[in-house]
């Protein structure tokens, strides 16, 4: 399924988080699965609050890390795609449908 950058990803609120040495475990109480993410991915997930477009999340990540590269944008979108595949950002697809085409 293709992803629209017009989506406003929203992370699930029922995930439990544990931190260990700068890495984060996300515990999904529905599936009993655990996903391990690094600090950068945790920052991206934290920005998925349903108010930012994917482009805005990428821009915010670039601002936080003080660099602007196409590669970083691609990393952010790839991470968001993984979050969607893992079921960590539930509303992204729905929001995408509601956004007008750019």
């Amino acid at each position, binding site marked *: 399924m293709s992803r629209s950058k017009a989506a406003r990803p929203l992370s699930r609120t029922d995930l*439990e988080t*544990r931190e*260990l*040495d700068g*890495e984060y*475990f996300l*515990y999904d*109480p529905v599936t*009993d699965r*655990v996903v*391990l993410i690094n600090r950068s991915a945790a920052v991206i997930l934290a920005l998925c609050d349903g108010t930012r477009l994917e482009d805005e999340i990428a821009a915010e990540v670039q601002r936080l890390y003080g660099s602007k590269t196409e590669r970083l944008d691609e990393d952010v979108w790839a991470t968001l795609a993984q979050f969607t595949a893992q079921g960590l950002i539930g509303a992204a697809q729905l929001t995408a449908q509601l956004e007008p085409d750019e």
Partner: protein
Amino acid sequence: MNDSCASFQLLDRLILVESGSPGFIADLRRCFEEEAAQPSQAAGSADLKVRVAVFAEAGKAQPRVEVTSTPEKALRMRTAFTASAGWSVARELVQWVVDSASSYYVFHSGSVARGGRGILMPGATHSGKSTLTVALAQRGFDILSDEVGAIRVEGGMQIGFGRALSVRSEVVGELGIEEPSESGCFADGAYILRAGALGLSRASSARTALVVLPTYQGRAPTELRALRPAAAVMALYQASCSQPRWKLAGLDFVIDLATRVPCFELTYSDMHEAARAIDGTFRDVCAREIPLELGRARVLEQGEPSP
């Protein structure tokens, strides 16, 4: 010995199995290290009672087996086995114990101990848990289990699990084990063997000092690498049998274990080299620990012999 029933103590569960088939009861006994108590004593206090009916079917060489359990103590029903009936029922009993053990966190894991300290070896099927368990026992470790690595949640002790060993036929020769001649001791491509029959010793409990996650890879050199705690957590979590019961508390337990205990991943093809490497790492880990009885230390007087 009663040939119509047998009882087994596994973790904190007492199981009584009854059958009109003495052959089946004998077969089942071979699947466990020892019996718990006289069946007459177990009858009143058993946590699970299972009745097994064995009968011949016309035109079939193998007996048909039906298992029922008392309704209030549910055992997943298996209505028919045509081969290895004792081992199949034993596996069901082990699964029931693991699922119902409320005081233990259980890994799909080999488990050995020496000097009161334990090694947990969680791994997938065919990773070599049983082989390494036996190979380490041949180097002087005591066996807790080759399959069920149980840790008491309160206190964190590794606890022995009295199922017999299941050693794959292709490694029996390499381990120097004589192929057992008793019938009914072979199931799922493995020999079912009691530790005592192999001259190996068992332990009842130990404090976990080392976690090794083995992977067998044909022709791979033996390599034991320290795992960062987060990676160890994920590997331990995948080897867990207890998650359906423990949920988030289970993740917390695994994180606690992985941060307290050194965790290594092992790739190997030679079981003896692998056992040697694990043994060496275990010695290093134990040597780095602060002696538990440090409080008893005192400075000896000049010339006083060391106790």
